[in-house]
Structure formats: structure tokens, C-alpha cells
């Protein structure tokens, strides 16, 4: 009897909720983990009445696999440039309806031009954030291991086995991102970081093999907390993630000081682009969402929170000083010149790169 009662209550509730649900406007967003001030989402919903279903990933590979399988159910996704270019070739994205993007004029030409390498004529994507892949380190622990003149501003720190040997005790993490570490190694060796030459890629892998015994883990998101807690002393990671670790450590007041350096030899500059899958169901809402993010005050709020630079020029006057004034986030002209970009690997080269990476990770 109780069950029957419950069941009928359930049916009534479902009937009442049904029509309301049908009218709810939704946008399904799939973005990187730790990559937004969640207030932005609630404010967006408050203003537009569009509910945001927000889901996160921590590697381009996961996003790409979902996108290539199709029917992801996502309306806005945020791949990085190199991955975006291949996904565009595979027909994953729809061309943006620029008529619905009134805030487009806020965007920064310098960034949009660089992105054209991946997205010709910027037809399919809008820049969300951009950043660099460099070195995050625990100031005191690195000093303890390597002395006062530790080469924290150089790739020597992580690519010279003698340095890594001493750092191993306090813990070193590398990103689990072959498409970023192989170019970093190539650049360190004085080669073209964007080389698709398989012999050169082999040499880069050899360099990584030399230091791998001293690497505790290859992972693309655990290092934020690990750095902040003092569990590790060095991470090859993404600029904003390291700076978030710096902030978390400062908030926790645990005597951990984290810093980020763009090594003097140069570093990868990457772009995370908002795009709409061709099979998205809420295309109108997706455009509204992207246009909202392009508002100067929203873009500034996002950058102030995640410590990544954005591609929105109009937002720059609204950024906090510790964001716009930090050369680790908005590098000066001299540093910017040393930043390099890469392109997607063709499938054959990709296999060599992945195999080399597996060799590096497993040590054989």
C-alpha cells in the first residue's frame, strides 16, 4: 500500500514537473578542470535563465575521443589549438554564427591571429584562455636540494639528470601530455619544437628517458594540490595551474611557497578555444554562453580567478594587478618572442610520439 501511494505521488510529481522541464533552457559545457570561477555560471543563469550543466576533463585526449565518437551531448567544449585543428578536419565543429556574437569586437587580434594556425579565419572557435607550459616549483625545497643558485629559470632544472637526481627525493611531476613535453625537449636540444621528424622525436624521448627515473608521476591535474600541499617540489605544468597552487598554498598558510617560471630557453604557448560541436542540441544557448564569456567584465573575472591570460583585449583594464602585472601570466615582449607554438601530429607521427611517450613513462 505504501508503495502504491509513493508511486502515485511520484507520477503526479513527474506530470507537474514535465512541462516545466521542457521549457527550461540548458547549455551543456565541457571545460578543463579548475578552469572557471563558478560564480560566472550562476550569474549567467540568473541573467539569461539558461541553466548551465558544467562538466570537466583534464586532458585533450579524453575530450577528443568523446568528440570523435559523436553525440557527446555537449554544446560548448574547450579543446586546445592543436587538437582543435584536427577536430575541425574531422568535421566535429559547426561554424560559429558570428551574428549572434555581439561581443566579438572585444577580442584581442594578436591572439586571434595566432589561433588562425589552427582555426583558419577563426570560423569555429573563440579563445577562452591561453597560457604557457613551464615549470612550477616549491621555492624552499628546490633551494634545499640544489642550493641558492638552482636554475629555476631554465629547463636545465628538469632536463639535466644531475639536477633531477637531487630533486627526486622531494618529488617531481611532469604533465602527462606528450604533445607538450616532446616539443619542450626538442626546444631544449636546440631543435625546432614543432618538428615532425621521427628521428628528432626519438632524440627528445632519449632526453626524457635520461631524467625519467627521477620523475614520480606523469599526471595533468594532481600536481596542483601536490605542489600546494608541499607533497612535490617541482612540476612541469601549465602556468595558471601552478599559480592556482601558489594561491592555495598561501591560503592554507602551510609555509609552502610556490612559483612559476617560463624558462629562458622558451616555452610552449597554447590556446584553449571555445567551440560548438556540429551535433549540439542547444546551439542558440551555446552562442549566448560564448557571447557572455566574451564580455570584458566576465573574461576579467575568469582570468582573475584562474590566473590564465585570456584573448579578450577589452578585459585587460579590468584585470587585477597580480594578473595583468605578472609576467608569468602576461609575458613581456622579450619573453613572448621566445614562446613557440606547435601543430597537430599526423597519425603516423602521432603513433611514434605516443610510443615514445609510453617508453618514457614505463621506462622501457
Amino acid at each position: 500500500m505504501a508503495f502504491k501511494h509513493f508511486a502515485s505521488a511520484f507520477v503526479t510529481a513527474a506530470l507537474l514537473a514535465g512541462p516545466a522541464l521542457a521549457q527550461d533552457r540548458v547549455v551543456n559545457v565541457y571545460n578543463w578542470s579548475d578552469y572557471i570561477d563558478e560564480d560566472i555560471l550562476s550569474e549567467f543563469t540568473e541573467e539569461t535563465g539558461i541553466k548551465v550543466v558544467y562538466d570537466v576533463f583534464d586532458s585533450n585526449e579524453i575530450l577528443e575521443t568523446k568528440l570523435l565518437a559523436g553525440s557527446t551531448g555537449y554544446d560548448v567544449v574547450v579543446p586546445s589549438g592543436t587538437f582543435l585543428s584536427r577536430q575541425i578536419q574531422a568535421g566535429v565543429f559547426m561554424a560559429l554564427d558570428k551574428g549572434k556574437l555581439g561581443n566579438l569586437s572585444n577580442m584581442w587580434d594578436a591572439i586571434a591571429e595566432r589561433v588562425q594556425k589552427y582555426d583558419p579565419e577563426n570560423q569555429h572557435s573563440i579563445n577562452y584562455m591561453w597560457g604557457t607550459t613551464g615549470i612550477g616549483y616549491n621555492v624552499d625545497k628546490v633551494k634545499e636540494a640544489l642550493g641558492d643558485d638552482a636554475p629555476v629559470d631554465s629547463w636545465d632544472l628538469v632536463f639535466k639528470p644531475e639536477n633531477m637526481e637531487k630533486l627526486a627525493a622531494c618529488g617531481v611531476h611532469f604533465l602527462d601530455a606528450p604533445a607538450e613535453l616532446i616539443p619542450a625537449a626538442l626546444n631544449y636540444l636546440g631543435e625546432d619544437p614543432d618538428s615532425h621528424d621521427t628521428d628528432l622525436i626519438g632524440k627528445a624521448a632519449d632526453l626524457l628517458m635520461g631524467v625519467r627515473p627521477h620523475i614520480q608521476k606523469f599526471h595533468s591535474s594532481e600536481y596542483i594540490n601536490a605542489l600546494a600541499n608541499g607533497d612535490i617540489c617541482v612540476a612541469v605544468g601549465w602556468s595558471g595551474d601552478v599559480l592556482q597552487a601558489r594561491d592555495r598554498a598561501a591560503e592554507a598558510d602551510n609555509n609552502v611557497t610556490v612559483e612559476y617560471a617560463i624558462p629562458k630557453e622558451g616555452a610552449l604557448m597554447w590556446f584553449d578555444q571555445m567551440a560548438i560541436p556540429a551535433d549540439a542540441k542547444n546551439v542558440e544557448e551555446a552562442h549566448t554562453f560564448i557571447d557572455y564569456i566574451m564580455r570584458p567584465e566576465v573574461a576579467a573575472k575568469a582570468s582573475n580567478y584562474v590566473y590564465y591570460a585570456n584573448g579578450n583585449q577589452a578585459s585587460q583594464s579590468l584585470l587585477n594587478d597580480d594578473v595583468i602585472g605578472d609576467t608569468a601570466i602576461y609575458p613581456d615582449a622579450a619573453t613572448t618572442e621566445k614562446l613557440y607554438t606547435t601543430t597537430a601530429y599526423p597519425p603516423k607521427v602521432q603513433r611514434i610520439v605516443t610510443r615514445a611517450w609510453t617508453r618514457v613513462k614505463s621506462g622501457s
Partner: protein
Amino acid sequence: MEGRLGRILLILVPYLWLLVFFLVPFVIVFKISFSETAIAMPPYLPVFDLSEGWEAFKAAFARLSFDNYAWLTEDDLYIRSYLSSLWIASVSTIITLMVGYPIAYGMARAPTAWRPTLLMLVILPFWTSFLIRVYAWIGILKKEGLLNLALISLGVIDEPLTILNTNTAVYIGIVYSYLPFMVLPLYSALEKLDGSLLEAAQDLGCTPIKAFWVVTVPLSLPGIVAGCFLVFIPAVGEFVIPDLLGGSETLMIGKTLWVEFFSNRDWPVSSAVAVLLLLVLIVPIVLFQMHQQRQQEREAG
């Protein structure tokens, strides 16, 4: 008449289940394993185009390429992953048995009134998500984690042990996660044990330890076998535990498959890896089935 229909339906259900949830997905994976990668959605070329009729289908069948399987033998990564997975699963199974047996034995010997509670305690961890429980081990095993803090404050060690991100952590994770699958069949075998047999052994001059080895262990063999298979088979293909607790040198086929699928975007080769994994596991699965069948026949007879 109606009884017969009911019986057929009853037999049909498990077969339908197998067909829909095992055979159909397997055929799809098997088909993809003969394909080639492409920059497209989905990222491989179709093997068969059914719209072109039966003749074209037969022609495509004749053209089937085993390149992806050949590739698995060319690079020793795959064979090493399979072997390493089998090794890790075997060692974990043995440890689980050694840990699980005393637990099950204690439960079976406990006063009858306690048993439901003890049984409940074994099943209790399942109420929390598997993922969260594995994550909790990170907090226990890490350098500044609970285990190291406890050992240091007790004066057992001076320097924190590096356990997390090593194969040791993987063993701990697997043993912990699969322990209930070992304990439950052991318990059900040991609970059925007739206590008078042990008394008889003692009357005939057996020491308790010898009685354990000649009476208890052989009689609990069905439970040992069932428990070992229930741990071993899923442990071979385990992905989450080596991914979260393992280190960069932990090589398991689940991780290799993940890399093949996600990093290489090579669905055809990852499908071939999956098909081979199934073949590797079919041997223990068939052995297990045969054992179960014999067991049932013996119990029926």
C-alpha cells in the same frame, strides 16, 4: 503447455542478456579491429558497407586485414603489458587469498548470532563509491599521508616510505578492493564445513594444524577456487587502481589500452588489444565454468 513456455522464456532471458550485452558489443569491437584509423567521426574507416549488397560484403570479407594484430606482435609493449597484468593479478590474488582466508575462517567460526553482522561488515565498503575508496588510499599512502605519519610518530621509520605511485600501492589497492569477492565464497564454503569431521580427525590423532590442512583446506577448495577466479579475472583488466595508485612504470594492459584509445586515437589497434585480452581471459573463465559445473553436479549427485 504454459509451463513449457515459461521454462523456455526463463532459459531465454540469460541468453538474450548475453547476446545484447556481450555478443553484440564484442562483434562491434571485433569488426573495428580490422579497420584503419582516419581523421573522421568516428576515427576509423568502415570495414563493411552493407548498402553495397552481399557481393561487396563477401569481397570486403576476403580483403580483411590482420595488420592490427600483426602490429601487436611487432612491438613488445603489448606482450609485456599482458604478462605484467597477469603477474600483478596473480600476486594480488594470492595475497587476497592469504588475507581473506583468516577473515572468512573467523567469520565461519564466530557465534551464529554474530554472522549476519560480520557478513554485513564485509559488504559495507560497497556502500561507498569504488572510486572514492581508491582515492582514499592516496591520502593514506602518500609521503605525508596517514600511514607514514603514523609510522614516524611510532618511531618505526625515520624517513617517509614511498609507497604511492609504485606497484606496491597497486597490490594494496587491488587486495583491498577485491577482498570481499574472496571472503564471501570462502565464507560460504567454510560455513558448510561439518565440525564433527574436525573432531574425528582429532580423535584419530591429528594435531589442529594438521587437521586444518587435511580437512578444512580441501573441503573449502571450491570456495578458494571461486574466490581466486573472482579476484583474478577482473584484476587482469583493472584500469582505475593502476591509474590512480600506480607509478609511471606500472605496466598493465588496461592502461596500455587506454593510451591506445585516447592518446593514439587508434580505435582499430585498441580493439585488437581488447580482443586479445578477451582471449587471454577466456582460458581462466572456461576453467572456472568447468569447475563450477563439476561442483554443481557433485552437489546434485
